[in-house]
């Protein structure tokens, strides 16, 4: 199994898609409730697997293009088939996943095994009959959106109009129509005329869940810009600019690096947005630009280890974050296969671990604790024993229920609330 690079539930939560470093997409489907097997309710089983992207070689620039899937985004379901967008560094593809459980028999022009029949031998015509067959799930690429990004694509986001979507790379954001593959509109371009002056890159972008003209993008300097596409064709000038003033007492050489935002997500309500930087998660009210309304420390104990983390490049890890369906809780990953959940109203937080040893099927997850100094209590883990190779970058929360999907390197864990 390859390293999982993205995890995403669809709008109903029945399907869970994962993309990996090898360019494969694996879709899991939730089992229907079944009285004869009560425990299997809510279990996710493999539904479809397909190769979305292949490694490519750009001959012009002598560069290899990785097949790693950076993001998957589902489209809202409009018919029996499911559609999703998957992207690597350069190309976005629209995939149609459809079920086939019937096949036609009794063709006129070909035999049952597919050989063509000699037309002169056909003496009678018949109507083919549909017969049931074993369920087959097929994935086929319906659109390929290519050659629009010079830099590496880091985000895609489907618009609430269900007709357009945006794709963002380090310096530009493009707007696409789902039906049109040979053209896209460039809506944000922060590339300076002189690359010498480049000091900031785009790190993530997302459309507002309800207002189809509004999107946000985050930067490596820890700022978020909200743009309104009605104001101008090129949204280089933002409508709102979100930035928290720096705390001078915590300034260090690495301040800028750890302020770089790795993920931005609107709440389901559309009233808030959440940003993840290296050490914290911040919730912003869209109506207040000068500071976030809530800040949650994910692993503050790492602040005194920044130099080591810089040396081994961990400081550049891009953690994602997600909301639960009701926007009352948020979740994000950390190191040592730990992930963190924060309840917004009670301010309770929890650290859990996604590993084989700590999760037996149907057993409750035990909360973990990292010991930051002094005497280490039993069951606590000291900061120096954390495994920084075991990082949880990708998590997803079911849109309605308390089911979460956590990607720990090349393993996928699905946890849910205990059902009594």
């Amino acid at each position: 199994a390859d390293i999982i690079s993205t995890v995403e539930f669809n709008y109903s939560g029945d399907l869970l898609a994962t993309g990996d470093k090898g360019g494969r997409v694996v879709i899991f489907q939730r089992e229907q409730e079944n009285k004869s097997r009560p425990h299997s309710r809510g279990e996710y089983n493999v539904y479809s697997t397909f190769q979305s992207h292949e490694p490519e070689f750009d001959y012009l620039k002598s560069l290899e293009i990785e097949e790693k899937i950076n993001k998957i985004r589902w489209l809202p379901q409009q018919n029996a088939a499911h559609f999703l967008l998957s992207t690597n560094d350069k190309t976005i593809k629209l995939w149609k996943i459809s079920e086939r459980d019937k096949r036609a028999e009794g063709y006129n022009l070909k035999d049952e095994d597919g050989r063509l029949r000699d037309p002169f031998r056909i003496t009678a015509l018949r109507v083919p009959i549909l017969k049931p067959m074993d369920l087959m799930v097929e994935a086929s690429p319906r659109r390929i959106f290519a050659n629009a990004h010079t830099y590496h694509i880091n985000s895609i986001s489907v618009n609430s109009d269900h007709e357009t979507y945006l794709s963002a790379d380090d310096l530009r954001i493009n707007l696409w129509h789902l039906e049109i593959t040979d053209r896209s509109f460039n809506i944000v371009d922060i590339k300076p005329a002189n690359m010498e002056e480049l000091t900031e890159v785009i790190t993530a972008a997302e459309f507002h869940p309800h207002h189809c003209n509004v999107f946000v993008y985050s930067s490596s300097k820890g700022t978020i810009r909200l743009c309104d596409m009605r104001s101008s064709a090129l949204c280089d000038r933002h409508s709102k600019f979100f930035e928290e003033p720096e705390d001078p007492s915590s300034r260090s050489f690495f301040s800028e690096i750890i302020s770089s935002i790795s993920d931005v997500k609107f709440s389901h309500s559309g009233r808030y947005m959440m940003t993840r930087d290296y050490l914290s998660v911040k919730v912003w009210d869209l109506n207040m630009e000068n500071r976030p309304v809530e800040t949650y420390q994910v692993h503050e104990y790492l602040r005194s280890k920044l130099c080591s983390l810089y040396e081994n490049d961990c400081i550049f890890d891009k953690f994602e974050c997600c909301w639960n369906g009701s926007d009352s809780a948020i979740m994000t990953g950390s190191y040592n296969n730990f992930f963190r959940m924060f309840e917004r109203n009670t301010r309770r937080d929890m650290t859990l671990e996604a590993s084989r040893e700590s999760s037996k099927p149907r057993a409750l997850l035990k909360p973990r604790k990292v010991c930051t100094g002094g005497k280490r209590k039993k069951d606590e883990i000291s900061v120096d024993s954390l495994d920084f190779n075991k990082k949880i970058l990708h998590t997803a929360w079911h849109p309605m229920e308390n089911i979460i999907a956590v990607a720990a390197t090349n393993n996928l864990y699905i946890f849910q609330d205990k059902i009594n």
Partner: protein
Amino acid sequence: MLGRGLKRKLSDYEENMAGLSSAFDSSRSLSYPLKRQLVLNMCLTKLQTYKMLVEPNLHRSVLIANTVRQIQEEMRQESNQQPINVCPGITPSSHGYAGMESSGISLQLPSGISQQESNCCDLRSVEDPIENSLLIVSDDDMSSAISSILKDLDFVEDISPPTCLVPTGDDQPKFPENTSLKLEDDRQDLKGAECVFGSFEISNSTSYLKDLAIDDIFEDIDTSMYDSDFCCPPLMPPRPPSLAAEEPLKTFPSCNSSSANNIQICRTDLSELDHIMEILVGS
């Protein structure tokens, strides 16, 4: 820190390696300039490594470049404020870096820290005036760090043999005079580096850091000591006018003492740089 919580025996080598930034994070004994120097070294090393990649990560490069700019700006302001030969006596709080816990000693710090340590000079890389000037003018707090640096530099010697034996003989008596020169070089280099750090410019927008540009950038700052892959001694010492005459002395011994491979690399790089200079000068 990077391990999986397994107990392992720390060899001396490991101690030195792990000591780099772990020491930075955990100990408090190093002065602010050294800490800053360590970070600067790490940044330059990373940038150098990225330069060797076909397609460096733009996001990371920008973040590291910004950090370097920030440090250089600070160093420039300091050198503007301080008269020559006076120790800035920097404390973290005076720069608002109250959060800095500590110090690590960079293995990559070229040697040659203070006049007190004569054998330092053996390893001193004259090619890095920024660090030299910084270290030369720093205060006695440094000397305690110096001995540990020397110990650590046992490792560095493998990478960059102490070829500076030749120039050091000359340099030692000139120390006090060199100080002022070094500071000037420092300013020049800062300026040079600064305006060209800007020049992550490349003709091809897809490859953020292209070879030619980087060679220009680092022309003034010799970072080849960090070029651990090549294991090549300093190739391109910066050219302060007063020391121009000594250059051949420095360059050739360093080439001669290496293996044949390194000589090849030296010569290739030198000719490459010449080629680049030609293009730039347009002749």
